[in-house]
């Protein structure tokens, strides 16, 4: 199968989502080896998907959680917590915020993390063999189209990858990642946590 540039542009999205047949995939990759223009299109499109998929792209306005909860309490009868309920919630919030702080500060004691999201929090089987690029930040299953620099790949276990500060690829490792984990891992557990995060501003 031979593909032209136009075919690559039409299929780039399906290619990145792994929704093309193995034959088409091979043909696209063959074309990419010889075509710098299409390589630029595929690389750039992959970057778009990767960069917007990062949770840092969405910044909650400061105080969002607090206001949301106030609105819920004010509107839903019977949701007002008992004093004990509040006590439990407050204790949980303190523990969570403490954990958050501890997680951040413990980063200093470990080898430098390649990715903000590499916190050893995924459920990727530790013995699974994964692919990492030397100057990459994420680990992947072999053949994932989101592998960045194909020149310097290594195969190591998921455990080693996490130890070395790589984070699981949100695409190929998706089934091991919890949908709530991203939001919880450094989401504003409360506004204190939000205001302490230098990456988060509310413009």
């Amino acid at each position: 199968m031979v593909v032209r540039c136009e075919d690559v542009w039409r299929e780039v999205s399906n290619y990145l989502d792994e929704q093309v047949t193995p034959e088409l995939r091979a043909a696209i990759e063959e074309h990419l080896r010889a075509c710098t223009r299409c390589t630029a299109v595929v690389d750039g499109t992959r970057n778009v998907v990767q960069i917007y998929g990062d949770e840092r792209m969405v910044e909650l306005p400061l105080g969002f959680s607090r206001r949301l909860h106030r609105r819920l309490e004010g509107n839903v009868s019977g949701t007002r917590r008992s004093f004990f309920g509040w006590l439990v919630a407050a204790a949980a919030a303190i523990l969570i915020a403490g954990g958050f702080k501890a997680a951040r500060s413990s980063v200093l004691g470990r080898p430098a993390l390649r990715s903000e999201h590499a916190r050893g929090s995924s459920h990727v089987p530790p013995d699974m063999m994964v692919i990492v690029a030397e100057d990459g930040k994420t680990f992947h299953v072999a053949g994932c189209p989101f592998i960045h620099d194909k020149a310097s790949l290594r195969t190591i276990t998921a455990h080693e990858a996490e130890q070395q500060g790589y984070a699981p690829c949100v695409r190929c490792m998706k089934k091991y990642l919890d949908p709530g984990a991203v939001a919880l891992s450094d989401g504003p557990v409360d506004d204190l946590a939000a205001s302490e995060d230098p990456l988060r501003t509310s413009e």
Partner: protein
Amino acid sequence: MAAGLGSLENPAQQDYEQRLVQRIRDGEHEAFYQLIRPYERRVYAAAFAILRNEADAEDCAQEAVLKAFKNIRQFRAEARFSTWLIEIAVNEARMRRRKERADLIEPIEKEKNEEGSYTPRDFADWREIPSEALERKEVREKLAEALGALGQIYREVFVLRDMEQMSIEETANALGISAASVKTRLLRARLMLRDLLAPGLGGAWSSQLSFAKGTKPW
């Protein structure tokens, strides 16, 4: 990992959420706070993608969460709670948008070529590792600006699929369009964003100066 909830695996998470839903249905309304906490950011992001205004998006997100609470009995066990919640947010945001802009004529030219093929305008090489670029505030601003420049139909699909990480089918259901339309719009959204961002983020301005925008370099 800051909290225990996120450390549960997918099926366990769904199970856990199902139990929370049951507790809420049985009258333990406080459990709703636990249920929505991991998704607050995603609800806001969906609303913001459509309304493009912080205050409107926040109000819309609050309303959507409130509706989810009030309609918790309609939530079906086989669905993911997050998908259901975001669908509510999308509907709420679209309704508000229609109401606010009822007197405005929607630009149709953005949608007329939807089925036609899209030719990339720019072939700048973009090699920078995106997660590093995100550390810079001006880059995040450029990204938000580029997303805002997309037509509504493309932005909705892109946000649900690539930012909310919903599947093609979930995106199609949430927007009430076919899976084929999701794919077509997604392709276009991704390519348009690449065209908007590659020249700047690729740092290749100098090598691209000889090619005027819209012309092909060959």
